[in-house]
């Protein structure tokens, strides 16, 4: 159920070739990164797409389809597939829409996948802080969209679990208990929100999967994962789940004391891609955050995906054109030293 990462095949150097390369040191300064590739062999690469949308009432389904096209996702690939969309609904409150993936992004994603021939699309979430999931749907505004469009929803917090060996090995958890639905779909899609986070630095498509883990087994909040280590748990979940795609809602994100108490910030973008570390690294650049300073991204680099700019082929808008630094809180340790010096 996973999409294999793309490797950029680079020829390895013989000792003689390496010596010759060193002799032309003047050229190394110019092409140092290329030499690093040569020295270390194949490198993970990925593509991400940035699409601009100033408002949620824009034609988001069309924008997402455009992203699919740019990323080489064809109707042939999607036709007949069962899609699970996992939005971020950690703790909705009425009138605080910048906390959650916006319902119109969910609607747009559903329409886009169905238009490419998906057999089914289900929206599923296990809210991290609230065990009244139905109230979460109502307060987030998602209930109306689901009802109007007849989109099925599953509460992951109370779903029967399937135990899977922990393929990440970053925490002491030998296994992870996922909701059984992850075994019943073909694609798992992270439909995340672009936010700062006071424990993890940033919460994007990878962190969003905390909400997949059923509250029945992990609690409200998912404190088992906090105890095991947040960056480590993010990596374990993603390494084991092997999600297929990510769409990050940065039309209005959250800066400051995220993921709940921060303030709205308009970036006007959707960021998409097959590779989640690459998507999240691109989001970080848009947010003015150095992805290498986010622990889980740094550890994911060249394991679960690329995070360095030179290894991420950018489609759609350049991140530089939509760059809008998110406010960080100096008093929050996880925010210290995150600011990117790029640009």
């Amino acid at each position: 159920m996973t999409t294999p990462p793309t490797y950029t095949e680079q020829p390895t150097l013989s000792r003689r070739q390496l010596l010759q390369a060193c002799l032309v040191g003047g050229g190394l300064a110019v092409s140092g990164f290329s030499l690093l590739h040569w020295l270390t062999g194949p490198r993970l690469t990925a593509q991400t797409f940035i699409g601009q949308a100033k408002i949620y009432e824009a034609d988001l389904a069309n924008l997402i389809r455009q992203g699919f096209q740019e990323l080489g996702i064809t109707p042939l690939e999607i036709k007949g597939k069962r899609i699970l969309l996992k939005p971020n609904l950690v703790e909705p409150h009425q009138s605080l829409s910048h906390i959650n993936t916006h319902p119109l992004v969910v609607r747009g994603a559903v329409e886009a996948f169905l238009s490419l021939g998906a057999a089914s699309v289900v929206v599923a979430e296990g809210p991290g802080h609230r065990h009244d999931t139905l109230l979460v749907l109502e307060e987030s505004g998602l209930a109306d969209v689901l009802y109007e469009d007849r989109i099925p929803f599953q509460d992951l917090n109370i779903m029967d679990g399937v135990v899977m060996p922990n393929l990440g090995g970053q925490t002491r958890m030998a296994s992870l208990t996922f909701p059984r639905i992850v075994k019943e779909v073909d694609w798992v899609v992270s439909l995340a929100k672009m936010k700062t986070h006071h424990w993890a630095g940033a919460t994007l498509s990878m962190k969003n999967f905390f909400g997949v883990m059923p509250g029945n087994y992990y609690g409200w909040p998912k404190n088992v994962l906090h105890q095991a280590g947040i960056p480590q748990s993010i990596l374990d979940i993603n390494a084991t789940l092997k999600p297929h795609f990510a769409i990050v809602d940065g039309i209005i994100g959250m800066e400051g004391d995220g993921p709940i108490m921060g303030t709205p910030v308009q970036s006007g973008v959707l960021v998409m891609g097959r590779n989640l570390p690459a998507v999240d690294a691109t989001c970080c650049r848009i947010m003015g955050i150095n992805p290498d300073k986010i622990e889980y991204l740094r550890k994911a680099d060249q394991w679960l995906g690329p995070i360095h700019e030179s290894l991420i082929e950018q489609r759609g808008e350049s991140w530089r054109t939509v760059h809008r630094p998110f406010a960080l809180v100096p008093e929050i340790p996880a925010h210290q030293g995150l600011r990117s010096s790029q640009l």
Partner: protein
Amino acid sequence: MEYRPLIELHGDLNFSLMIQKPFRHALELLQSWQQPNGGFPYHSGEEARPDATAWAIISMSAYEFDPESCNRGRAYLASQQADDGRVSIALSHPEASWPTPLAIFAWESFPQYQEAQSRAVDYLIGFTGRHFPTPDLSIIGHDTAILGWPWIADTHSWVVPTSLALLALQVVGLSTHPRAIAGQQMLINRQLTNGGWNFGSTTVFRRELHPLPECSAIALQALAGTTPIREVKRSLDYLLPELPHLRTPISLGWALLGLGAWGLKPANTEELARASLQLQERYGPYPLPSLALLLCAVKASHGLHSLFRSLPQETPASSTRN
């Protein structure tokens, strides 16, 4: 331990026939989901779960509805109990022992389950969350050292599991046990300055979190009868205006119970509950625990305690626990 009937007794043997149609229909629906092993699932056709089973028993017993079905449910719960007394969400996940208080409710007043209930109580008394001295008040605003109960073993204590455990200790007459006292203190400590409770944090990086109606209501329910009203007035003041906006069964159900426990059950309770039941036309059938909770909220005159014959009292047997 003293036995007390789970339900408020009514002289009319045909009481179950007097249940209003939408609530009777809801009872019949959850009854129909019972599985051959006696357990109840969240939804029809799914695997039975201890928490769903306990809620089914509590609600059906409250209405004196199908005692035989309830008995089979109690037997199922006993089959799910571990040697140390805990009742977990699944035998494969003993660390998720948060349904234990619910099993204590379901076994209350039934002599054949006294031993099982007693072992569950002993487990609760010996079980706590991960606690530690508050590292830095500028980061975490609550007192992390006060003992409560966690959702999952080896994690911190939070509002909902602590409230459920407190209620269970109260039901079996242990409301003055040191663990119950500490649990009450823990809930008071986690109360937000402006009223209500979040899932269990108060301030993080000096920012006060938002109150949640479902957590606020269950905490109010757990503190009723043991806490002066002045200590929770601000939370009652938060929850009362929220009530008219609550439609979903978990938040509405706990709000009716929590307010009812303080003598504030609204006169239009049944109307509110019917409106909530009608929402199923929009969202589909509720999970069994949600449905059962709503039914309990309709039936309980003064909070969850009133589904029992008497309010919690210390008994000679229970007072020997430590």
